[in-house]
């Protein structure tokens, strides 16, 4: 068969199926092979909250989107070029996201009467037959049937055989986009080490998918996406939570302190626990507590004992931790609090993304309880800012918030990872033992950063008591003195403010230092805003983009940086949070731009909005 190769610069593929169809695994495998092949990429897993929602229903649809190319890729893509639909529900949920004229690869067996009924498709309205897909390039494949035929003598049951379907699709897409399959074969061998039969079956079906592409006229068109011209160096693919966990371990190594992670499982933060619990040979201790309060409290205990203490959760858990964050602030012990944000109050939408906990981090405690707040902007940035959060906590003896969100936590990108020797040192010193004749130890004496000394239990002559009751400065004794409380409240704020002397200046990410409009973002919206800014600049607009990673305190030059623009727009996936703080702190008449749908920004919608503001 003769095939035609077409060169394309980038493509967005969306794998969609039932949550039992293994779409996340398919997407991750495709991502790894694509990364190894040398493309730049960004991914977006979009899965239901229910682990096993009713089979075949719209509620159970799980999708994985990847955008890869030979150029710089900042986001997982607004719309997809190719949609893989394993069943009717997956098509129904995802078609609105497909480009006009896009390719749909359909598993026809997922459109039988039963699947149509489960997807609430009205009688006689099978999309494969009613002409509704006329504007698309539809490719029908009997995935289930072919998989079953390929494995009919494998000795496996139908259920086990059907679980290999996703490998067929993966093989086929590998063929279409000239991806190597060896990497996935190795993966399958590793994953099913203990079950040779299942390993063989998966590999066989993967190859069957590839061969199907090779022998069927339908797939005569293949696409070449050349490797991207990226900065020279060694790369890996990394997801946000994975990067955050490694950043914490790196801080532990650099500070020479054992890491203690006290936490309670919650989506989308649990993967940090899963990862850290595998790193015990790095002298890492993970503690799965009975709830989030115990999670943070165990970490406070560990911090008292001289560990690099970390706790992590998502919004609901952070709400529970509030009182203990106040305690850590009063104790002036180092503590990193991780919040992988998710959408909505209460349970909200656990698997959907949002950046609505900034005000919670800022103000969400009783009394006045300022903390340092950092927010990562991309999957790989989670590494650097998790590391930085630890460094600041340890060197300033202060609680530090690290904010991420479901979007970057589960998203992946290629990462030119650093060499450990290039990471900053983290300087920690414990108070030395004392004898009776030495001066009495003062637990709340301070250095130039206003940090108090870290005196570990077990050290001779340093016996002292700390607690949540207001302290007398320097001695640390209980004090209800009026003037002292005011002094201490101001000191705790000043301690946070002084961190500004130790963080980098705010940079303009794209565009000129001055202009008509500044897009001021924070957190996981980075890629979408960067792409949008690039489009606007290319169209001749005087627009720039700055992305704030240090949110409390802000970089010292932020006010001045904003003053060079006629308009400042703050796009956020919330109802307006950073914009409030910016307006309050800098008296800038910043314009909010908000999306609150549990979904990331699309670059196109940002472009339209900015043009509307500029007009």
């Amino acid at each position, binding site marked *: 068969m003769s095939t035609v190769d077409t060169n394309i610069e980038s493509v967005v593929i969306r794998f969609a199926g039932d949550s039992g169809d293994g779409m996340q695994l398919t997407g991750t495998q495709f991502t790894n092979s694509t990364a190894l092949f040398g493309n730049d990429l960004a991914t977006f897993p979009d899965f239901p909250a229910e682990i096993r929602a009713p089979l075949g229903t719209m509620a159970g649809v799980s999708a994985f989107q990847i955008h890869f190319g030979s150029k710089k890729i900042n986001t997982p893509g607004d719309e997809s070029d190719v949609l893989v639909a394993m069943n009717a529900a997956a098509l129904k949920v995802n078609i609105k996201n497909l480009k006009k004229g896009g390719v749909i690869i359909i598993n026809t067996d997922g459109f039988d009467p039963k699947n149509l009924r489960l997807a609430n498709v009205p009688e006689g309205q099978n999309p494969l037959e009613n002409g509704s897909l006329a504007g698309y390039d539809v490719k029908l494949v009997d995935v289930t049937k072919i998989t079953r035929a390929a494995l009919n003598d494998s000795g496996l049951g139908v259920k086990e055989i059907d679980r290999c379907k996703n490998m067929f699709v993966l093989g086929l897409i590998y063929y279409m986009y000239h991806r190597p399959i060896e*990497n996935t074969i190795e993966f399958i061998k590793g994953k099913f080490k203990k079950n040779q039969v299942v390993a063989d079956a998966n590999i066989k079906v993967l190859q069957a998918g590839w061969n199907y592409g090779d022998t069927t006229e339908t797939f005569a068109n293949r696409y070449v996406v050349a490797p991207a011209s990226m900065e020279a160096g060694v*790369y890996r693919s990394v997801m946000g939570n994975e990067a955050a966990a490694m950043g914490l371990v790196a801080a532990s190594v650099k500070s020479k302190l054992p890491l203690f992670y006290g936490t309670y499982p919650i989506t989308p933060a649990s993967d940090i626990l899963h990862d850290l619990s595998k790193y015990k040979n790095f002298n890492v201790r993970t503690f799965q507590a009975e709830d989030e309060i115990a999670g943070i409290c165990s970490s*406070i205990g560990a911090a008292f*004992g001289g560990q690099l203490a970390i706790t992590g959760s998502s919004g609901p858990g952070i709400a529970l931790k509030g009182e203990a964050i106040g305690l850590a602030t009063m104790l002036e012990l180092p503590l990193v609090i991780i919040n992988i944000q998710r959408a909505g109050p209460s349970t909200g939408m656990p698997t959907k993304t949002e950046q609505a906990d900034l005000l919670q981090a800022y103000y969400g405690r009783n009394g006045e309880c300022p903390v340092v707040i950092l927010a990562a902007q991309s999957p790989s940035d989670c590494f650097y800012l998790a590391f930085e959060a630890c460094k600041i906590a340890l060197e300033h003896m202060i609680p530090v918030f690290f904010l991420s969100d479901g979007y970057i936590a589960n998203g992946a990108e290629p990462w030119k990872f650093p060499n450990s020797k290039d990471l900053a040192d983290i300087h920690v010193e414990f108070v030395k033992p004392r004898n009776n004749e030495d001066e009495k130890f003062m637990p709340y004496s301070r250095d130039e950063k206003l940090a108090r000394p870290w005196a570990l*239990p077990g050290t001779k002559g340093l016996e002292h008591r700390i607690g949540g009751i207001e302290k007398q400065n320097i001695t640390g004794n209980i004090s209800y003195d009026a003037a002292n409380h005011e002094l201490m409240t101001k000191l705790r704020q000043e301690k946070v403010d002084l961190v500004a002397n130790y963080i980098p200046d705010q940079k303009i990410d794209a565009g000129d230092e001055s202009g008509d409009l500044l897009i001021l973002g924070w957190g996981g919206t980075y890629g979408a805003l960067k792409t949008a800014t690039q489009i606007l600049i290319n169209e001749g607009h005087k627009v720039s983009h700055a992305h704030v990673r240090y949110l409390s305190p802000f970089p010292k030059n932020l006010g001045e940086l904003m003053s060079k623009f006629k308009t400042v727009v703050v796009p956020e996936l919330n109802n307006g949070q950073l914009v409030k703080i910016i307006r309050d702190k800098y008296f800038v008449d910043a314009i909010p731009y908000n999306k609150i749908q549990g979904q990331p920004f699309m670059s196109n919608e940002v472009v339209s909005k900015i043009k509307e503001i500029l007009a």
Partner: protein
Amino acid sequence: MTIEVTNKLTSKDFSSDQEVRWCPGCGDYSILKQVQTVLPDLGRPKEEFVFVSGIGCSSRFPYYMDTFGMHSIHGRATAIATGLKSSRPDLSVWIVTGDGDSMSIGGNHFIHLLRRNPDLNVLLFNNQIYGLTKGQYSPTSEQGKVTKSSPMGSLDHPFNPIALCLGAEGTFVARTMDRDPKHQQAIIRRGYEHKGTSLIEIYQNCNVFNDGAFEIFTEKSSKKEETLMMEHGKPLVFGENSDKGIKLDGFKPVIVNLNDVSVNDLWVHDETDLVKATIISRFYDNPKTEGHFPRPFGVFYVNNDRATYDDQLNIQVADAIEKYGVGDLDKLIAGRETWVVN
């Protein structure tokens, strides 16, 4: 013979310079004194002791001890101490908590502490009232108690703390009282010696908001008749003239008169027997009811076989290092698959 020159610690070494601020006559004073009496004798450097408390009158305790200490937040000392002990097994960690602190707001952490069994000691000051907040009923107050928040009598059925702790898989469960210094000291010492979580419930009189709650057990005139002092390997005998005992009739305990029954037929206390400990923990009835049982004091149950949480956690870390070698950060960061861009 060599003369040993040691700076032997005294109870004074364990007193901080902070003025003790409990109400005069409060049972907390006695507990502070007994702890300060026992600690110097344990042969351990002072700097290795850490007292962690929650909130309540009782939780002020760490301020008065010249050791390391943390006065934390209401109900959470258990969790804080677990984190501390897990990462610093070299320390002697003590939790000081009240009946409200441990069994109301901190109830969740309390039961999980006991099942995990880290090697630390809990001094549970039970005064059957909220002292610090000025006298509301607590989870151990008797039903019908008239307090500021229950003018018509409280509706809540109380916990039986010892039964709760046994149910929560505690490995050392004991009871003592503020008014019996010798007994208290002995139990505190045994608690310290136990490897695992030692739970010591201490009946503590709050003479301001719940005066006399335990009078019947502590007053000379009624103590012998109303208490059962348990000792391992000894028959359960009580009474003004040690003339009464407890006998097991199948699983049913019965009070017998030693004029009718031989001491040899009595129930012999066995601390290691969980079933018997469970039965005896149920001697918790109202002393005013007819045919009630005496209230037991001493060690109900000890389990020396359960590994401690801190040991197990640290063994896992050591095993991981042995198996995989000390973690290599660069290898970790590089992950399984990398590629080179030229």
